[in-house]
């Protein structure tokens, strides 16, 4: 028996070796024969699932347009959702919300009067260049704002009223205006910054002004302020920061694909749209307070001359400074006032 076992072993050992060799040799051939593309298949579903947010399925392309190498960009759907679902909410809340807020404010607080009434004497608050700068920028802003709102909401609000041809032509001209007025607007923002930044550095005084509610909430309270009070400084910095963000994001939309591919354009349009809506809401408040909301305020950007009483109530320290410089109020004839 042992001999049989030994014999069997002596047979089996080389057999096993031979078989091992056989498989070693035949394996690549067999692999070749049984090659299943499925083993190495690229499944679209898996590829898409593996993508991180904002990523694209990208490959190689033989045409010069490198962006065409992006095969599928699922982010397009999120951008679409932002445009069609989120943006109307943001726009609605920001613009309609601000309008309601201002209407309520007007209703409750009423117009903020000059407590002591018009003195009839005025003092120069904004030089002609400053006013020019303001109104150029403001005009640009209004056209940019309206044409921008038209791009986002005109399809729902205006298109049904005037029909596709008229609406398309209007939007086309609006787009051109938007593109070209962007440049004077950017120039205006830069000039405003240069001219007014020195008067808009925040200080401790601003904190007191804010704590006192800026004198807006109650009559007869006028926290002291230099040339610009904290509220105006807020508007200034909103305009500067908002303007820079709009300029930056707009620049990349004006010159597409300079900063990247479609993903960056998607991001910049989102930034542009959100900042724009907040900006517009803020400027609505600015327009309100500078016109309907406060007696005597419009003159500052209208004629440039504000009533001395208005100036003393809102910018007591600035009037003192001006007088110290020898810039006395002009002896203008008494202004025609309401019999109050």
């Amino acid at each position, binding site marked *: 028996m042992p001999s049989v076992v030994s014999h069997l072993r002596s047979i089996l050992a080389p057999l096993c070796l031979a078989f091992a060799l056989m498989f070693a040799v035949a394996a690549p051939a067999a692999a070749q024969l049984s090659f299943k593309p499925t083993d190495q298949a690229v499944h679209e579903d898996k590829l898409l699932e593996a993508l991180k947010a904002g990523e694209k399925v990208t*490959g*190689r392309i033989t045409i010069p347009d490198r*962006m*065409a190498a992006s095969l*599928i960009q699922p982010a397009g759907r999120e951008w679409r959702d932002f445009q069609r679902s989120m943006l109307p909410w943001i726009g609605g809340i920001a613009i309609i919300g601000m309008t309601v807020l201002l209407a309520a404010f007007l209703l409750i607080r009423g117009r903020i009067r000059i407590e002591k009434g018009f003195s009839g004497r005025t003092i120069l608050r904004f030089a002609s260049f400053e006013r020019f700068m303001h109104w150029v920028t403001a005009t640009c802003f209004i056209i940019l704002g309206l044409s921008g709102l038209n791009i986002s909401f005109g399809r729902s609000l205006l*298109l049904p009223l005037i029909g596709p041809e008229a609406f398309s032509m209007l939007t086309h001209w609006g*787009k051109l205006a938007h593109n070209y007025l962007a440049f004077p607007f950017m120039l205006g923002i830069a000039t405003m910054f240069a001219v007014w930044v020195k008067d808009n550095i925040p200080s401790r005084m601003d904190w007191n002004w804010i704590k006192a509610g800026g004198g807006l909430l109650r009559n007869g309270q006028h926290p002291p302020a230099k040339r610009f009070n904290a509220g105006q400084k807020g508007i200034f910095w909103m305009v500067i920061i908002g303007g820079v963000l709009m300029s930056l994001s707009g620049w990349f939309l004006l010159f597409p694909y300079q900063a990247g591919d479609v993903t960056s354009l998607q991001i910049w*349009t989102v930034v542009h749209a959100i900042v724009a809506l907040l900006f517009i809401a803020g400027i609505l408040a600015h327009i309100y307070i500078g016109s309907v909301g406060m007696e005597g305020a419009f003159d500052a950007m209208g004629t440039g001359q504000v009533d001395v009483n208005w100036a003393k109530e809102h910018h007591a320290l600035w009037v003192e400074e001006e007088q110290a410089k020898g810039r006395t109020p002009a002896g203008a004839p008494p202004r025609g006032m309401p019999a109050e």
Partner: protein
Amino acid sequence: MARVKFLCDADRCIECNACVTACKNEHDVPWGINRRRVVTINDGKPGERSVSMACMHCTDAPCAAVCPVSCFYTTADGVVLHSKDLCIGCGYCFYACPFGAPQYPKVGNFGSRGKMDKCTYCAGGPEADSTPAEYAKYGQNRLAEGKLPICAEMCSTKSLLAGDGAIIAEIYKERVMKRGYGSGMWGWKTAYSDSPTG
């Protein structure tokens, strides 16, 4: 005709680019615009696949959804077309399109890119069928002549299929059954929100 669709069977595409050439030739597409392109993923590596991609003529098309001037419309066959007369060249459709289908004749100078151009499924545009005006703006209207898109008609391996969505999906399913594998109907789920092969 029922709802027409495109289907690219990447397991068959040999990246010959004949679909690209055929499309450019059929519609006299200008330099720089490619209504169709072939993208190769995993180039030179295991699992290399080439996919011919153009406008997929999506159900509930994103381009139509985001267009500020609403210049898109869907035909009875399910083809997504647009009016170049209404288009203002803003680029929104390109941002929203999952497939990079919209093309513009110009890039740059203050965002004026010219009227958007894209695959029409060889179905022209809003102009009267097969008129010179339609040809100049949108290319040949093969559908009006009872023909299918030239890209698929010319596909040497029949990787790219065009026609009734139900039929071409059936063809693809049979192929997968027969050969035992399939890397997917590229873009189908994204475009049509369904996936007959699960």
